């Protein structure tokens, strides 16, 4: 039987990908949480519609 993924989240150490406010990543690091901060910028030249489409295409 497949293990329950939500129960896993609640019982295993958090490992975080942070996308957006860098201060959140800083605070998680200070709490010794493993965090990778994405040096993000708006994809698709800042066009949300194209960015949305690309995410649906898996790119």
């Amino acid at each position, binding site marked *: 039987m*497949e293990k*329950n*993924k*939500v*129960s*896993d*989240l*609640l*019982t*295993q*150490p*958090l*490992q*975080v*990908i*942070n*996308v*957006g*406010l*860098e*201060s*959140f*990543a*800083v*605070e*998680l*690091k200070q*709490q010794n*949480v*493993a*965090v*990778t*901060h*994405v*040096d*993000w*910028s*708006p*994809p698709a*030249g*800042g*066009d*949300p519609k194209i*960015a*949305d489409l*690309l*995410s*649906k295409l*898996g790119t």
Partner: protein
Amino acid sequence: MSATIINDVRRGFYLDSVALMRFSRVLATMDGIEEAAMMMASPSNRQIMADAGLLDQTSAGAEGGDLIIGIRATTPEAAEAARVQAEQLLDQPTSSTGDGARWRPKTMRAAVKAHPEANLALISVAGDFAAAEARKALRKGLHVMMFSDNVSIADELSLKREARDLGLLVMGPDCGTAILNGTPLAFANRVSAGDIGIIGASGTGTQEISCLISEGGGGISQAIGVGGRDLHEEIGAITTLMALDALDRDPATRHIVVISKPPAAAVAAQVVARIAASSKTFTVCFIGASGWQLPANATFAASLKGAAEHALGGNKLFAEFNADALAKPAKGRTVTGLFCGGTLCAEVQSLFLGAGEAVMSNAAISGVENLSTDPRRHKIIDLGSDEYTQGRPHPMIDPGVRDKALNGELDDADVGIVLLDVVIGFGAHEDPAGHLVDSLGGQTNGQTILIASVTGTDADPQNRKGQIAKLQAAGVLVAPSNADAAELALACLRLGG
């Protein structure tokens, strides 16, 4: 003499809204600067800058991925000095995660490749792009916490359905608070560990309840945020039901608190049926509702404080607090509430309504009038709502949004009492009480009664006791909870006649 406006555009240059707010503040305090802002050139931000009289033709071609520097100054020299300062700020190294010059991934895909053990994506990009990032995270097998707001309900539904099919949680959008496995995420507090789980469609509601439980000697097993619309009919409580299943299975959780605005009837029926099927006990706090039909293992709480007390087994919190003993007579007829926390704002509306007071709000709960100029009604404002936060960080990060409103209320002789929340913890401003006291000029004016409560704990980075001491030293009356602050305001009104 007319003002000088200077714009500069950096093509394809991104900084997050908090970093840009800090830089904008530096420019705004320079000599001769009337107004200054640095913002990503999204349509909504461009409108905000245009409304503030900060745009000229130079920025007309800027697109969503570009950054605009907008400066309005009394002289061309002052404007130019600010422009130079802005360029220097943007050119300085920005990483504060301690990564230094180390390579950093630029996409979700690259981040997951570099960190394959990751199990959660925390997303706080602008709402226009948040759904796309959440979708990428789900397809990489990550649970998602979406702090971002301004995400369409259609996107929310599609993400939550996809997540449910994958067995993954989507907390949010507009999910401000979570504590997972002892780790506070985004706006959350360092509370004691314990056996009470929280499922919250409200960020500040979850913060207030978790802190009150911790203050009362209890502790939190998990606090799962679901987003403010999860119990709306369109979403059907997808995340709430998944969280209920998870906490029901969790051996570390004995009692579960569910907090939300009153849900749609059909959704409430589903949630109540799921609660009835559980062997655990529940506190259900639908802020703004006066009661709710619940199964035998659940109890309704009308306030955040009441919910915390019930979760603690009925122990009365702050029994020593006596609002009547602390109250002073109000000199003006009405109360103005200026709240950073939406649910704290709703709780005060609910308590004022219960006391028979006439209330209006920009975030009105059932029974409260929408905001108007009616001078007889108490005015309870949510400063975290869209009209105050478009293009700028939430007031819990940038409490400056309250300064102007507060000064206006202090000048109004009809306003006898101003009621405030000070929310601390991770994610929040480093010293909101100090900021508030500074904006008062160090002391209250002696005419208007200021009443506040501090949501947080002594283990938080800002330290609750220290924040309370700063407020009290400035003449602010401090109550031990938001509900007690409302009681104190009502007691001051009664004394004022």
